[in-house]
């Protein structure tokens, strides 16, 4: 382990953050939006939240996470655009291609943020600030998008710096700037501190990052647990965490999908079909990652937003749609029968699998049904091949295909699925 203090001073980290990313991409697609308040949302009915707001919309007090109903009330003249994640993912990947021309060590931190370790490469571009300036220019020229760049000796200071002159900003924070520029900032500005943590800290009389750094770690630990120790370690502006390049990204800890129903529903047949669809997506992703898991978690959000999450641990590691579905269904049936308060309309369902192990180490168990499972696995393999080649929508379970056409036949298929479930 290198000494964190001298190691950090030697590093040069660059943080790049797209300005109002989703909204900016939509403005590129439709120049008529430029200059107007634009809010990107999941869909235009009032069930979702704003995913991104451009700077004009932010003037009305709207930001990512504002419920759509409230956003419409605050800014009735605004334009609401139904977001298209594929557009943004593509722009994000292309942006990272540009970043990799400035350093081989690029960590895609989120869809609109990346960290670059430019310790070794900055000199080729005229130093850290000039590297930042050129990177901004390249992204602007190639995509017409503006980004804010922050440079620092570590991730915390780089990320803080990128916020200083947003939008279209370029700023640097060095170790020497810590007392004068970093410590006087409000705690809410610090990387890793959410609104709620900031609120709690302000109640304790801790308003600036410098004051936070002066709080003994035991006190923060007592109030915030593990997070407390983390924020205490970060407050002095020191941070030895490395930039993790794409290829080194650790395997996922869990794989999950959730779905907000178009309308709240209490129809068990329908809800189970949604569960099957979710289980299939999760199974597919587990197989893509080459992992299996042994804990299945079901999340249910009811019409009134109360949310429960219940997990079931299995004796074996699984990645088959059917096993995931069976476990999720068992939790679902058990919870629904437990209490009348759970027999109310449901808004969202989520399925996730954790406790992951490598496909080789994870066993799928049960020699008893070997014949059944070997046929099943053959079918899944074929379906996965078809989806690899022709897309995710190319194949699915029969009972998930257009139910409205013939409800009678499909409910029989659904019943068939249930009986299979019982047989195993």
């Amino acid at each position, binding site marked *: 382990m290198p000494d964190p203090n001298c190691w950090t001073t030697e590093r040069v980290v660059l943080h790049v953050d797209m300005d109002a990313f989703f909204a900016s*991409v*939509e403005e*590129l*697609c*439709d*120049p*008529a*939006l430029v200059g107007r308040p634009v809010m990107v949302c999941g869909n235009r009915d009032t069930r979702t939240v704003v995913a991104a707001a451009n700077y004009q919309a932010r003037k009305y007090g709207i930001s990512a996470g504002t419920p759509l109903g409230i956003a419409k009330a605050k800014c009735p003249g605004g*334009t609401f*655009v*139904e977001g298209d994640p*594929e*557009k943004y993912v*593509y*722009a994000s990947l292309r942006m990272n291609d540009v970043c990799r021309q400035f350093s081989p060590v690029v960590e895609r931190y989120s869809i609109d943020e990346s960290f670059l370790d430019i310790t070794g490469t900055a000199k080729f571009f005229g130093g850290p600030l000039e590297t930042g300036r050129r990177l901004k220019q390249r992204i602007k020229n190639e995509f017409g998008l503006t980004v804010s760049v922050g440079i620092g000796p570590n991730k915390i200071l780089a990320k803080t710096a990128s916020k200083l002159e947003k939008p279209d900003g370029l700023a640097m924070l060095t170790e020497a700037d810590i007392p004068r520029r970093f410590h006087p900032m409000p705690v809410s500005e610090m990387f890793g501190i959410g609104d709620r943590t900031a609120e709690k800290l302000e109640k304790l009389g801790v308003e600036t990052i410098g004051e936070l750094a002066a709080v003994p770690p035991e006190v923060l630990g007592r109030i915030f647990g593990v997070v407390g120790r983390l924020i205490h370690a970060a407050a002095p502006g020191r941070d030895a965490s490395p930039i993790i390049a794409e290829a080194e990204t650790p395997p996922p800890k869990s794989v999950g999908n959730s779905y907000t129903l178009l309308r709240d529903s209490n129809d068990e047949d329908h809800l189970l079909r949604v569960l099957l669809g979710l289980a299939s997506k999760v199974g597919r992703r587990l197989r893509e990652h080459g992992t299996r898991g042994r804990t299945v978690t079901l999340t249910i959000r009811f019409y009134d937003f109360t949310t429960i999450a219940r997990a079931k641990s299995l004796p074996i590691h699984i990645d088959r749609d059917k096993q995931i579905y069976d476990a999720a269904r068992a939790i679902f049936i058990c919870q629904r029968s437990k209490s009348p308060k759970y027999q109310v309309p449901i808004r969202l369902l989520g399925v996730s699998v954790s406790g992951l192990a490598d496909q080789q180490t994870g066993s799928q168990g049960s020699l008893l049904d070997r014949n059944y499972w070997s046929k099943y696995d053959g079918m899944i393999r074929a379906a996965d091949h*078809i*989806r*690899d*080649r*022709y*897309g995710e929508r*190319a194949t699915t379970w029969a009972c998930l295909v257009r139910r409205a056409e013939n409800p009678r036949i499909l409910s029989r298929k659904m019943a068939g699925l249930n009986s299979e479930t019982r047989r195993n």
Partner: protein
Amino acid sequence: MSETIDVISVFRKKTIKPVRFRYAGKTHKITKILYTWVTREGSFPVHHFSVETKDGNRFEISLNSYTMNWAFDSAEPNV
């Protein structure tokens, strides 16, 4: 569902540039490609274009590289 359309396009130096397309009984001349992005249908790229036409309208069209079909995806989807 997207509708299949006829498009005149230029393939040059690994780039695709739609020039004009026929939709709803009318030929639309593309004056500006506003944004392009690529998605996948399985292992096949689908090239998407947000375009502006001579009469000032905006459309999204796409080329599926497997079927080699051009599709009309939307018109002024934000308005």
